[in-house]
């Protein structure tokens, strides 16, 4: 038997939805990494002669109100989107993992306190929090990342806590204790590996959400600094000139759709492979 077929990647490649998702994600990641090489123009260079150019062989997706090449800007925007998404998901995931484990292992009062804290944060509308924080902090990617981290780590914390609680009382953990295993060994060898599955699924499902938050904040003008080529900023430019040059808006939305679809499907495929019990009934 071919051992590859049993690895995670092997199983993913047997699922057409996962192949489709992997293709989109690969396309996005490669185009973000090699944005400088692929881009036909400088994404920030203004060319006032060619303002509002229609899509052509020179400007594949046309130009915006300042004559900047939309395609080059979208490639660069992919970098920003992925950078924000990966950084924010990593930070909020780590915070959630640590707090979730603390809640799961800690005394009852700590668990209750952390749960209350998680629920308070989750109940707060993201966009209101984003507006409030943007008013307090300098405009930039750092603020975007902080907003995302604050609004999303509670979700990881809850998932990790639930997993930890159910594992903590399972018979195999009792068996480990009965053999004399230390607390650290139980946590790192037996709890953590079993928590990570659902944790990674959640992280993959959260990537597109974070990308949309970044685009949303940039669209509202509280995200990236002016002039930075973000997907949200491109959408905003396109929105302003929707009556005269609709292709800016249309091409600005395309990568956002691709990213959302790609990462969501990848997350679902990952979930189906790693934890079939979580599969929603369709």
């Amino acid at each position: 038997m071919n051992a590859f077929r049993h690895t995670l990647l092997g199983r993913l490649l047997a699922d057409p939805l996962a192949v489709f998702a992997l293709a989109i994600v690969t396309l996005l990641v490669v185009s973000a990494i090699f944005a400088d090489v692929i881009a036909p123009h400088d994404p920030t260079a203004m060319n006032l002669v060619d303002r509002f150019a229609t899509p052509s062989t020179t400007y594949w997706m046309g130009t915006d109100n300042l004559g900047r090449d939309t395609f080059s800007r979208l490639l660069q925007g992919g970098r920003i989107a992925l950078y924000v998404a990966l950084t924010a998901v990593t930070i909020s995931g780590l915070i959630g993992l640590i707090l979730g484990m603390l809640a799961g292992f800690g005394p009852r009062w700590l668990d209750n306190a952390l749960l209350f804290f998680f629920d308070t944060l989750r109940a707060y509308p993201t966009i209101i929090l984003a507006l409030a924080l943007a008013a307090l902090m300098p405009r930039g990617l750092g603020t975007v990342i902080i907003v995302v981290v604050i609004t999303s780590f509670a979700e990881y914390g809850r998932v990790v806590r639930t997993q930890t609680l159910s594992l903590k009382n399972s018979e195999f953990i009792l068996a480990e204790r009965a053999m004399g295993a230390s607390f650290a060994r139980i946590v790192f060898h037996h709890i953590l590996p079993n928590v990570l599955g659902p944790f990674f699924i959640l992280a993959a499902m959260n990537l597109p959400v974070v990308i949309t938050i970044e685009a949303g904040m940039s669209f509202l003008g509280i995200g990236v600094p002016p002039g930075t080529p973000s997907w949200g900023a491109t959408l905003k430019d396109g929105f302003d000139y929707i009556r005269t040059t609709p292709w800016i808006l249309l091409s600005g939305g395309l990568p956002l759709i691709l990213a959302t679809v790609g990462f969501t499907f990848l997350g679902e495929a990952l979930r189906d492979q790693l934890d079939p019990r979580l599969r929603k009934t369709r």
Partner: protein
Amino acid sequence: MTPLLSLRDVVVEFPAVGGLKALLTPPEKRRVRALDGVSLEVTAGETLAIVGESGSGKTTLARAINGLVPLAGGQVTFDGTPLHESPDWHAIRRRVAMMFQDPVGSLSPRKTVRDLVLEPFAIHGLPLKDRQAKAVQLLEDAGLGPDFLNRYPHQLSGGQARRVGVARALALTPTLVLADEPTAGLDVSVQGEILNLMNRIKADHGLTTLIITHNLNILRHIADRIAVMYLGRIVEVGPVERLLTAPAHPYTRALMAANPEPDPTARRERIVLKGETPALNARPPGCEFHPRCPVARPDCATRIPRLEPATTGGQVACHYPLTQEPAPA
């Protein structure tokens, strides 16, 4: 001869109500006693079976011995070491191995069989010259081939997982093995194989074993003595044959009689107990068995019986132990 393991008046309590509700509950009702004064001695080399209904405290007893549940009172002494005075559990657990009820569920799901059987060495920091050879040998002793080394627990049948559990329990050649329902969830032929395996290992290593079971059919094959538990107390202890053929406690007699007889031609007396097992937080006064006892007398409701030597051998906690043989089978 001093026993290898001795328990004196062991009490284990669990919280019955938690949080704010506890403030509204009278103190004596906040906790339930899962074990209420258990005294027991296990001699080196013997196999003692603990029997009783679900909820009688059998599992709690095993867990109390190796410190998985804290004692609320009493003394436990293992090979001269008092276990009730916060001992070095790490060192104790190296010599006291435990087997849990669920054969698959007691194996860490993301570890291979190789890692699982070698885990005791990792836990106790014992270096192995040849990991592969040791793992193969441990599995072989438990009757499994080397092709199981790379399997995960979910790829094992109940019997195979139980063998992995046996291999792991014996990895560090323990002094005492606490086996909680070693035959639970296995079909009869596999039960037989596991019991033969345990008997063989016991003979090879001179192990002392405490087996918790409610499978009465296996007692003759595996145990030297039996202890019968009811509501967190030991009601009768004695040699296997004596308890099976001439139980002194009415509860032992009812328990033995309730066990299905594999021989369909055998006829015997049926003893149907009145009512249900009382809840642990609603213990009857006097002898706790008196409301269900077929031979109870008025003073049973007031006087608590103690474990005392029975005329026929062993000990029994009953004011009016059965003396006559039960109806011949």
